[in-house]
């Protein structure tokens, strides 16, 4: 996925030519449809179905490039994907409209849940159900690292970087920003592409 086909570098113009150019309003509605469809999960699959197949704003290759960019840069992946789609058509204003379309409904639901929580968290039954849900979400949190480890376990330097970051954070309670500011440049220097 990271290695796009050779044509991808110049795909921006032809990718757009073959597809429709949505207005701000259409961007908002489209992203809202993605958010609504994915209420049960599977956001990026829904996003592909709606943006590529139904509305044909992007071809599949441009969509895949978007996923790569969204994963690479800071920020939540799905939100970055909305920004990628919006900014392709209308720059910053498109990005903000796409973002608003994607977040409006789920964020409103979350705010209502939050208000309910702060009202009711002292209720015994609520507390017990949450105690249960937490065990599952802790398991999900634990799985995040394991999901990625397969990509690195043949590279001793990568494992050293990972282990070092883990120990710094878990054992020595180093905060994230100083940790990344120190290890990031070292890692980038080591992995700087060299001509051979």
């Amino acid at each position, binding site marked *: 996925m990271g290695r796009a086909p050779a044509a991808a570098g110049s795909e921006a113009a032809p990718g757009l030519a073959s597809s429709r150019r949505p207005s701000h309003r259409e961007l908002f509605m489209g992203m809202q449809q993605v958010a609504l469809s994915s209420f049960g999960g599977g956001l990026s699959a829904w996003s592909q179905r709606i943006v590529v197949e139904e509305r044909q704003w992007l071809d599949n290759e441009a969509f895949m490039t978007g996923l790569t960019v969204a994963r690479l840069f800071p920020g939540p992946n799905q939100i970055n994907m909305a920004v990628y789609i919006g900014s392709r058509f209308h720059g910053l204003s498109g990005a903000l409209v796409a973002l608003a379309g994607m977040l409006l409904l789920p964020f409103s639901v979350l705010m209502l849940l939050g208000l309910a929580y702060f009202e009711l968290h002292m209720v015994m039954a609520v507390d017990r159900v*949450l105690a249960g849900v937490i065990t599952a979400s802790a398991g999900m949190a634990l799985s995040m690292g394991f999901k990625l480890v397969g990509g690195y376990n043949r590279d001793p330097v990568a494992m050293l970087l990972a282990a070092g970051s883990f120990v710094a954070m878990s054992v020595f309670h180093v905060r994230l920003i100083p940790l990344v500011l120190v290890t990031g440049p070292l890692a980038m220097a080591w992995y700087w592409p060299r001509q051979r």
Partner: protein
Amino acid sequence: MSLTALAAGVAAQACTPVHLGDWRNLLAVIWDFLSLSLFSLGGGNTLLSEYHHMAVDQYCWLSSRQFADIYAIAEAAPGPSSMIVGLLGMAAAVREGPLWGVLSGVAAEAAILLPSTLVMVAASLGWSRLRDSPWRVAFERGMGPITLGILFAVGLKILRISDHDTPAYAVSALVCVLMLRTRISPLWFMAVAGLLGGLGLVNR
């Protein structure tokens, strides 16, 4: 990084919430979210232990137990789970009333998303040039392993603050394995675990 950092760790339990009516405190909080934004590697989950540090130790908006509750709510709710920041913002101001809670939640979410969104817009528009840049290659390959280490640390932290009994740890371990081995929707895990909690089979 901020004045209140001194209080961190000293008074873990009996701390008093930082008053956001004081504009200096408000600016400090907004600055914290803005600056964390660009460090949300790996889709934003790397920030969870920073959020815990901020909300529980530094600003005292939540107890550790409440933080675990809020994390579970954000995971179970529809939409990106990184919206937990909205709940943290709400926790900071909900004592003043629900309206302030919601406003503060929106402000926190906007602050955490703004910088990363600006960078993402620039990256999307300039990708054809960035794609073959050595900076892009070094960033992608170098940050990967660091993100990996941080995600393990975050997973362990969440497990710790969930404050379990033994059956609960067993459920967490099982969910972790099922997440890796199957494609079952996580909503099922949370629904079943919530039921187990309601029946009193897992406790904290």
